[in-house]
């Protein structure tokens, strides 16, 4: 009587309470239903232009201008600006007399096209959820996009490396600190709400390419074909360091200056055309740019030659690669659209909105799946100890997720992103807690093997005495019966 409850209590594992019902609710949430609140203000301008008002985050302003307006060039119908604005030219057959409904109905397909470019579409949703939803290999472009961009992470490390294989000939100077401060830092400051970035830079000497470039006499230059590009990264990667303190994903940007014997070096694409940027990038890794310096000195120069690298050109390419790798790139605009060139920060406001929205969706989906699978796992394996701090993390993750979904429904992108980041952090901390590893797998035969030698010798005399008691009681009852009779 005493033994069994005592044994039960001492062998049970401590499991703190988890909000399982709320977790199940979250997992049933439809992803697509909540997200598409976008405030679009359509201003119809006939005579003069209002002063462009500042649009809050998560909304778009579309200015509709008459066909004869000279604000846009002749062949351009839509202009997409930097600050969440678009200019849309009306078709010719609309006259002033028509009602507003007809006007809007006429404009609807054009506005839809604008939204396709500037805002969130179905392909963006599937791209954000690409690790959960694997596309059938029909749509190759979106697969490539989802493979290229880094997964959402609270921080990233960016490393700029200068590779100088020939220090005897070239003494290279690059003002990396100034260049980062002027060109890269504005973009990263604008993205500060999305993730933390840490930047470092290094110079590597005697770092060779893994491939031999071929000399093309017709061009008088060495060429690299696209097939050989894939093998360039591995020999260099072993020598690139990384910041061992954090587990954040690393983006590597390499600037390779060819040695004097192999200059100039050009990258050719599959059609044997020279690539104007002379750079290539690898999905989820970074980019490499080849910078030719043979034009800066003549054959009579005294080696080593002092060379200053044009950081504006280099950073232009790296910035474009950074935009691609972070997922800022917008889909190709249809013809007749004119997209404003990148501002000083390299990021338009509506691109930032898209990024924040897709990151929020991705974070919410990942956190939901993490929490759900954690709950399932803890349910299945009844022997894992659930500490209080894990239960706390799970509860806070669930709360943050609910808040994030609510904010997304309301259209507040900044708060939604913040809550979704908190949800991700809490859910990852709960899932990857080191104490959850006690996979106490005891197969049944091992359980018997442990308990039988302990309890069987004790049970034998107990059972025998119980039997004796029962038989004695029966005998007594029989004797009583016999006495009565």
């Amino acid at each position, binding site marked *: 009587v005493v033994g069994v409850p005592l044994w039960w209590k001492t062998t049970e594992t401590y499991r703190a309470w988890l909000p399982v019902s709320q977790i199940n609710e979250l997992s049933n949430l439809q992803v697509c239903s909540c997200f598409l609140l976008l405030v679009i203000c359509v201003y119809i301008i006939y005579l003069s232009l209002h002063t462009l008002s500042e649009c809050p985050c998560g909304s778009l302003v579309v200015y509709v201008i008459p066909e004869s307006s000279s604000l846009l060039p002749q062949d351009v119908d839509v202009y997409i600006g930097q600050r969440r604005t678009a200019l849309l030219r009306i078709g010719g057959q609309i006259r002033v007399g028509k009602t507003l409904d007809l006007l809007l109905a006429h404009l609807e397909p054009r506005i839809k096209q604008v939204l396709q470019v500037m805002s969130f579409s179905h392909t963006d949703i599937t791209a954000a959820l690409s690790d959960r939803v694997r596309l059938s290999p029909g749509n190759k472009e979106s697969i*490539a996009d989802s493979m290229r961009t880094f997964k959402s992470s609270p921080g990233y490390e960016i490393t700029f490396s200068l590779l100088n294989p020939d220090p005897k000939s070239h003494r290279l100077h690059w003002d990396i600190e100034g260049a980062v401060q002027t060109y890269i830092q504005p973009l990263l400051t604008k993205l500060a709400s999305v993730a933390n970035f840490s930047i470092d830079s290094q110079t590597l000497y005697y770092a060779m390419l893994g491939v031999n470039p071929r000399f093309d006499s017709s061009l008088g230059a060495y060429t690299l074909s696209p097939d050989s590009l894939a093998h360039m990264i591995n020999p260099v990667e072993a020598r690139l360091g990384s910041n061992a303190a954090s587990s954040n994903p690393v983006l590597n940007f390499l600037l390779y200056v060819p040695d004097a014997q192999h200059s100039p070096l050009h990258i050719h694409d599959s059609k044997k055309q020279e690539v104007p940027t002379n750079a*290539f990038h690898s999905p989820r890794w970074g980019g490499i740019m080849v910078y030719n310096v043979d034009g800066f000195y003549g054959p009579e120069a005294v080696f080593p030659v002092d060379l200053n690298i044009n950081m504006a050109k280099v950073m232009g390419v790296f910035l474009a690669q950074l935009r691609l790798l972070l997922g800022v790139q917008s889909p190709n605009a249809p013809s007749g659209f004119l997209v404003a060139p990148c501002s000083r920060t390299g990021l338009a406001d509506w691109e930032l909105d898209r990024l924040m929205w897709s990151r929020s969706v991705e974070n919410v989906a990942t956190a939901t799946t993490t929490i759900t699978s954690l709950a399932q796992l803890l349910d299945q394996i009844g022997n894992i100890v659930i500490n209080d701090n894990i239960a706390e993390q799970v509860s806070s993750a669930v709360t943050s997720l609910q808040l994030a979904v609510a904010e997304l429904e309301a259209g507040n992108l900044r708060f939604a992103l913040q809550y979704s980041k908190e949800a991700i952090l809490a859910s990852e901390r709960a899932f990857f807690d080191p104490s959850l590893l006690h996979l106490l797998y005891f197969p049944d035969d091992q359980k018997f093997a442990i308990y039988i030698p302990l309890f069987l010798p004790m049970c034998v005399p107990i059972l025998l005495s119980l039997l004796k008691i029962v038989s004695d009681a029966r005998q007594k009852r029989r004797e009583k019966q016999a006495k009565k009779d």
Partner: protein
Amino acid sequence: MKILGLLSLLATHLSANSVNIEENAGQFFSSGHTNNWAVLVCTSRFWFNYRHVANTLSVYRSVKRLGIPDSHIVLMLADDMACNHRNPKPATVFSHKNMELNVYGDDVEVDYRGYEVTVENFLRVLTGRLPPSTPRSKRLLSDDRSNILIYLTGHGGNGFLKFQDSEEISNVELADAFQQMWQKRRYNELLFIIDTCQGASMYERFYSPNLMALASSQVGEDSLSHQPDLAIGVHLMDRYTFYLLEFLEDIHPASKSNMNDLFKVCPKSQCVSTPGHRTDLFLRDPGSALITDFFGSVRKVEITMETVNLTDPIEQVEQNFVNEDLQKESYSYVDQLPVSEIIHQTLAGEDAPGSIVAVGGNGLVMPPVFHFYFTVTRHDVATRQEEPD
């Protein structure tokens, strides 16, 4: 006629080239991975298990040769072979008799060595549940687009694998660990190779998608070792891994051999045991999976077509000077406690046992244990002074 022939040859060559480019583009999308990881584990220690360490190191060498960098390899070895007292050639581990190939070399980066190779650490590496203080080189930082190669070797049995003679991992635990990896999308595709006795029992219980498994022997069979070396005195490699390595030596980063070739490695005539494989959980056709998808690290690349036009001149970073001015404050050390004076002071007087003496420049308060130690040493000092030997 010759010109016609040449022209037709050229035409076919060009069309073949375009087909190749199409095929390459197809390869980009078919494998779906962007990086490669490898987890290589040798689960035995002691001198007579030399061959297991040689197995693992040989696979490590091949994987590095085909392109996976050390930062993406988690190598777990007992690492007690190269500097073992019984090794007639110290600092070497050979994988072939006649000592042709030293697989230990001088750029082997062992991440978990000696007693760190435990079942718990192995499962922690796989599931990612490591304490926050673990360095990057000891973590498996894979994501949903990583192809992972897992190689285990050692002594095993029906449903378990022995770790360092003291514990075992069962096939159910391994299957659960892979399921947790799948839940967290820590791999895109996973290739599991095991070279132990009755190795096929270890992959019987897998149930997560995108797993392919190879084993050196079926349930009830023993995997045998290849050849002893009379100078070193132990067997140098296991048969399955030996023939696997022979096969891998022919693979280079651009080769197109696929998994079906890997399944044919080491038939029963060479291996004595029957190697087995399991592909029902693998979503692609094994014939379309390249060897380099798992053993090498072929990167996908795209040409960068766009560039951002930057016209601002570089701002000069002027903050450096301000910082230098700020750092002109002078610092000085805090007064140190004179330790020797304190010790020699208490030597003269009587001190109560069990009292706590505060000694040390960093303010350590010594518990009575250390106090006892100091009394002992002081006593020794005193006696030494009295009776020099």
